[in-house]
């Protein structure tokens, strides 16, 4: 494994406002990395710096071990980019837009393009200007996937896609991952990141506050459980159980949180007659918030 994307104290400020501050990212070969943060946190700024559209105020970035500024052309030969707010040439048809890209990139396998278009239900015969936001996004996705790049950089890729197409998009990402290629996705949507990413980096107000393994995070996730019993129970019965916290008992209802194995709790609960069980699957965002003690909460 080697680092595909690496930034060194990357900072970018606009008119004295620090949009990205000393970000040190490392994305490994073959992983799907989620770059998560609320809108305006600095995700797009980071990405556009990687692509040399904007220049760092300080620090540097390298992709494939090449300097993002000096070797931008060679880097772009090996990656594909999907911008957050996709803008394609309005007067071209989807196929023409893809043809232009294919020509600039030295060709493409058109059977693969047809396959991608079919899977995403993307009509390539229509002019871009006649397409809805979601359908433009699909053309953008075909464009990004079609050259089978070593690295895909996608800014909010599932925006505008309906749920079925989102699932298809996730499958495409998994195929890319299975082929050992690397994906960098920005998102403000935790469930999405949870669904497709191996690792996630959280950016807040330009600062990369944490980088975590998604599987490890999930293990640390607190499940909220609620048991309804046939008869009132005593709080003492559930005290000091390993992995169990925030225990409250109200007559015949027990509410608590469990981290990791629920075994001890289940055994304690099993001594009583359970009439109902309510379980809430936590969003990893909540895990993050509780773990890093960030006071803000964000709707997902």
């Amino acid at each position, binding site marked *: 494994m080697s680092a595909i994307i690496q930034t060194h104290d990357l900072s970018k400020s606009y008119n004295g406002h620090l949009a990205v501050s000393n970000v040190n990212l490392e994305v490994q070969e073959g992983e799907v990395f989620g770059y998560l943060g609320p809108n305006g946190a600095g995700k797009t700024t980071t990405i556009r710096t990687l692509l040399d559209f*904007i220049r760092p105020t300080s620090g540097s970035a390298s992709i494939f071990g090449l300097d993002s500024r000096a070797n931008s052309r*060679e880097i772009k030969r090996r990656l594909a*980019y999907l*911008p957050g707010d*996709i*803008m394609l*040439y309005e007067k071209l048809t989807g196929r023409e837009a893809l*043809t232009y890209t294919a*020509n600039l*990139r030295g060709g493409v396998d058109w059977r693969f393009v047809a396959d991608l278009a079919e899977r995403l239900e993307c009509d390539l015969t229509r002019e871009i200007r006649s397409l809805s936001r979601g359908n433009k996004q699909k053309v953008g996705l075909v464009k990004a996937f079609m050259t089978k790049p070593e690295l895909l950089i996608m800014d909010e890729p599932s925006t505008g896609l309906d749920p079925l197409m989102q699932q298809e998009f996730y499958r495409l990402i998994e195929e890319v991952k299975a082929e050992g290629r690397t994906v960098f996705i920005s998102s403000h949507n935790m469930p999405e990141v949870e669904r497709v990413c191996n690792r996630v980096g959280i950016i807040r107000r330009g600062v990369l506050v944490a980088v975590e393994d998604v599987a490890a995070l999930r293990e640390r996730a607190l499940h909220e459980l609620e048991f309804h019993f046939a008869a009132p129970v005593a709080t003492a019965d559930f005290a000091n159980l390993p992995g169990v916290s925030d225990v409250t008992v109200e007559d015949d209802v027990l509410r608590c949180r469990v981290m990791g194995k629920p075994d001890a709790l289940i055994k304690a609960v099993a001594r009583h007659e359970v009439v109902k069980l309510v379980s809430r699957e936590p969003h990893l965002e909540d895990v993050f918030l509780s773990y890093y003690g960030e006071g803000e909460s964000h709707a997902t």
Partner: protein
Amino acid sequence: MLRNVFLKSLRDQRRSLTYWGIGFSALTIITVLFYPFMSDVPELSELLEQNEALVRVFGGGFTDLTSPEGYLNSQLYSLLVPILFLIFAIAQGSGAIAGEEERGTLDILLSNPTTRLQVLLQKFAAMVTGILMLGLVLWASVLIGAAIVDMDLSIVRAAEATLSGMFLGTAFGTLALALGSATGKRGLSIAVAGAVAIAAYFINALVPLVEAIEKGAMVSPFYYYIEADPLSNGLYPAHAAALVGMSIVLVAIAVFTFERRDLAV
């Protein structure tokens, strides 16, 4: 036509080039067709000689309408030709980089294995090619009109006068290109390049009327376009070189500024 940035940019021009070509051609031929009526009225020339300022502004200072060169210079090459070349060139030049940037397509274009320099030079080449095509249309139209009214006009001189107009158009188109490349703002580029063009036109037309600052017209690109009267005398190399030099300097400025700045989203 989608092979590369150059051909794509040319393709983007097709519609405006077609309409512009038709308009250019029609105006030119109609103007030339009026020659027989004007050359029959020598009194008109005398009348014009009495209104020097007006003639300089609207006819480039050419008062002899009885000769083919005098007539074409006065009615076509002094005002109409530069206006048509300049509007087209400034529209293309300002749109080349700033247009793509404002529409948001520049990010995707530059995510391909190309460079800012490549994109800029190919866009510049497409603009020059568009101007060249318009020049060919102008030249052909003048010759067609001249043939219809049996005007005694040198094919080569007509080409040289047209070439001078193309150099002028390219210079201002490149000014617009440089402004757009430096700022990413199309409207600003059109406004500034247009204002400079108008100022330059009036400087060339009116400054020579004031004896003390007679030479001041030399700051205007229009001076190098028409002062040596290429339709009568052929291209004056030093003046042609001044216009080409202006374009080269402006391309260099465009590259320098475009390479160094952040692109707008």
